[in-house]
């Protein structure tokens, strides 16, 4: 199956692809549209995947929908950047604002497993203070979650995903030993380490969701370096090879290539099911509870598009905050060239990092950031050279010949939540007939100060290891968050600490869109930890008859 071929759903006959064997299948329980299942989960990424697995393992009947295909990594993931763009959500979006977001690659995913199928596997915990950043650090908003409770769910997520990390992590409170050892750090990571040591900062091998030793049927990572366009060996512990097979074995149904367009709400104000588009027709699945896990664009889009007479501004939106406080993370980079060969594409792209500026508050802006070693593949690298550096023709060709000598550092920085950074519905419609989302984004002065600080710091690090021809890439952003923030009250947030909407008691949101602030680390592990907690909370609510 290739992106240019028409794709048909694979999980319609009571079986799902066995990702570990070529052409293999695992049995999967089917539910009929008419059956009122306990839970419908919309989206199977870092939030929907673990939630589906845990709810099914707790005995609930669950149907999980994903708009993307159910891929077979061993057979369908090529060592080819262009072909692998099939993993991205490239449907039309309208972007505007002072700093329009570039949508469709690293900040999206349209596949069973969501963007974890192509993420860089960086699995970091929040700094504890970030859960109370308004009270303790003076910016953003407090989370209704306690960091100590999150610490236990982080540990569970790290176990489930067999995170490979260092025996002792240099920052933050004590945490249990990572389930697997950190990977060998490649030359690009060692140069980050050298630079950090020269600046007096600590550094660490990055905790990654790719195994350094066999795990079940996953082989250890072979350092192929194509992580960000899909792992063809299954070493990467994406949702597709971890929670999704668990979910299927526990009795959940995964509906691939099924786009949910609308949540139905009855006269009493409870959700009753979802309208979804699959195999050319619109269908309706009945459900007792609905969980939206579509990430920061699709989640508000679906809630807004499900407006009724009773909820004219969209579901769960009495606060007016659905779609608001959209956040991305600054992903600026500094690039340079070494005399010696580096071969930065060998291994996962971010094998080493420093979180120094996430834990050092001696700075004149809010928020923190980390930076990581880099290893972009050739097409991505050429787009940096043409975009950020403006090279073309002969100059571009000559620069590309230096590929094996390039090094780079890229930051993941905390951008502050702002009411006017938001997702709304446009007047235009897409291939499903659904309104296309409009994504409005502008950097705040604080964001710009953080970026300037990060660029200067990373530049110093490269200079200290003797890099030449240093240049800055000033415009990149990556992960998304916000748009359905969790909080302490129905006036100031969309969902409560249990990810349950204040307005509709059987409607939940469980993905990165519940983040009130986004922190200076990659969000995936936090999303997974929240999903694991939500599953436990739902079980507790059900036992008390409060579901």
């Amino acid at each position, binding site marked *: 199956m290739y992106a240019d071929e028409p794709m048909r759903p694979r999980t319609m006959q009571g079986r799902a692809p066995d990702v570990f064997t070529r052409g293999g299948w695992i049995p999967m329980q089917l539910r009929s549209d008419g059956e009122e299942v306990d839970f419908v989960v919309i989206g199977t990424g870092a939030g929907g995947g673990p939630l589906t697995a845990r709810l099914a393992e707790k005995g609930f009947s669950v149907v999980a929908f994903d708009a993307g295909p159910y891929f077979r990594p061993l057979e369908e993931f090529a060592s080819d950047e262009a072909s692998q763009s099939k993993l991205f959500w490239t449907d039309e979006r309208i972007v505007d604002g002072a700093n329009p977001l570039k949508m469709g690659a690293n900040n999206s995913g349209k596949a069973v497993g969501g963007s974890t199928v192509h993420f860089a596997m960086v699995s970091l915990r929040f700094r504890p203070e970030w859960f109370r950043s308004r009270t303790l650090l003076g910016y953003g908003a407090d989370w209704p979650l306690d960091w100590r409770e999150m610490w236990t769910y982080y540990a569970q997520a790290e176990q489930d995903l067999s995170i490979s990390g260092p025996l002792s992590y240099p920052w933050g409170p004590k945490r249990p030993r990572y389930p*697997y050892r950190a990977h060998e750090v490649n030359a690009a990571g060692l140069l980050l380490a050298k630079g950090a040591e020269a600046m007096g900062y600590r550094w660490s091998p990055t905790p990654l969701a790719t195994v350094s030793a*066999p795990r079940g049927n996953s082989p250890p990572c072979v350092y192929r370096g194509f992580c960000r366009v899909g792992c063809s*060996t299954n070493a990467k512990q994406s949702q597709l090879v971890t929670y999704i097979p668990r979910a299927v074995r526990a009795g959940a149904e995964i509906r691939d290539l099924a786009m949910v367009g609308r949540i139905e709400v009855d006269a009493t104000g409870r959700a009753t099911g979802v309208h979804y588009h699959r195999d050319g027709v619109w269908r309706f699945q009945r459900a007792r509870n609905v969980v939206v896990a579509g990430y920061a664009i699709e989640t508000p889009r679906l809630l807004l598009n499900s407006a009724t007479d009773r909820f004219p501004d969209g579901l769960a939106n009495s606060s007016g905050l659905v779609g608001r406080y959209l956040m991305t993370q600054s992903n600026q980079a500094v690039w340079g060239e070494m005399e010696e060969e580096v071969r930065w594409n060998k291994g996962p792209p971010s094998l080493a990092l420093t979180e120094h500026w996430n834990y050092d508050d001696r700075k004149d802006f809010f928020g923190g950031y980390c930076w990581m070693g880099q290893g972009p593949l050739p097409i991505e690298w050429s787009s940096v050279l043409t975009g950020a550096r403006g090279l073309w023709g002969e100059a571009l060709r000559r620069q590309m010949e230096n590929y094996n000598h390039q090094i780079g550092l890229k930051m993941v920085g905390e951008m502050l939540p702002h009411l006017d950074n938001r997702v709304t519905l446009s007047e235009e419609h897409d291939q499903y007939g659904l309104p296309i989302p409009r994504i409005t984004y502008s950097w705040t002065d604080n964001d710009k100060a953080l970026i300037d600080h990060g660029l200067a710091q990373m530049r110093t690090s490269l200079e200290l290891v003797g890099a030449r021809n240093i240049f800055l890439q000033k415009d990149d952003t990556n992960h998304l968050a916000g748009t359905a923030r969790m909080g302490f009250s129905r006036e100031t947030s969309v969902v409560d600490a249990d990810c349950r909407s204040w307005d509709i008691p059987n409607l939940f949101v469980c993905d990165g869109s519940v983040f009130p602030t986004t922190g200076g680390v990659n969000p995936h592990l936090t999303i997974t930890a929240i999903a694991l907690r939500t599953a436990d909370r739902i079980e507790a609510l059900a036992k008390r008859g409060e579901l």
Partner: protein
Amino acid sequence: MDTRSPTGPVAVALAAAGGMTVLGMALSGAGLRRSGRRVAARANAVVGAADRRTAVTAARRLNRASGTLAASVLFDSAVEHYRGGFHNKAMYTPLVAATLSLLVSAHGHRDRGHDAELARDLVYAGAGLAGLLGTGFHVFNVGKKPGGFGWQNLFYSAPLGAPAALCLSGLLGWLSERVRDNAPDTAPLVLGIPAGRVVGAATAAGIIGTVAEAGLLHLRGQFHDPFMLLPVTVPPVAAGFCAAAAFGGAGRPRPLARWMLRASAVIGLSGSAFHAIGVARSMGGWRNWRQNLLDGPPLPAPPAFTGLALAGLAALSLLEDQPE
């Protein structure tokens, strides 16, 4: 639900290898009581005078131990240094030293005479020296990397303990010459100390060092398979018994020590089988052997335990024959 255990042929192979290992360890304890009584009877019969044939037998056993370690070092360093592209010419040294040590060990194994051979002594001394130098090189290489002697470099940089196996091969070979080279009707001595005690102590120390190496690398692999615990549990017990025999009373049977040493020898051999399964679990398995033999678990490493166990058994024989 647990998705951590492999399924299919890998699970079957692991179960089979595990079963064979446990069976082998159990069988290696069979017949020990009987042979123990025989040893005791023999020792009583020749009170005060060591059997000279025992010395040669023990010496040849030590040749085999030295040769086993040399073979392990030869193949292991060949694979690992090839993986490192022999970027430093000195990386050929262990191949040469281990090959020579293997050859003279074979020679010693065939030699039933009572005299040390200068050529064997020279080669064994050279192997010991090469092992020491190798350790120095590896320590230097780890120390200069970012992170120094932190876990990350202990796991992935030049292994600090590996060249010591070459040292041990040289040391055991040299000891075999000393055991062999004794005047008739005297107890074999090494530097004036009863040979069994010297060999026993050296073996115990060697086993502990090898356990540390296996422990470090199995920790790197997160003991992801329970059988990975075997080399860090049974050999230390064997080393303990071996040390107890080396420093304890002589002239009596030590059936438990023998059993644990034999079990360690079994683990050394089955370790290679387990590592072969590990290679199969890497991406592409044995079809991709050219990559996975280099990056997977090292096939030649575990038999180092077998070599050391042979040395321990030689020490026990010497000690059993040694007058109180």
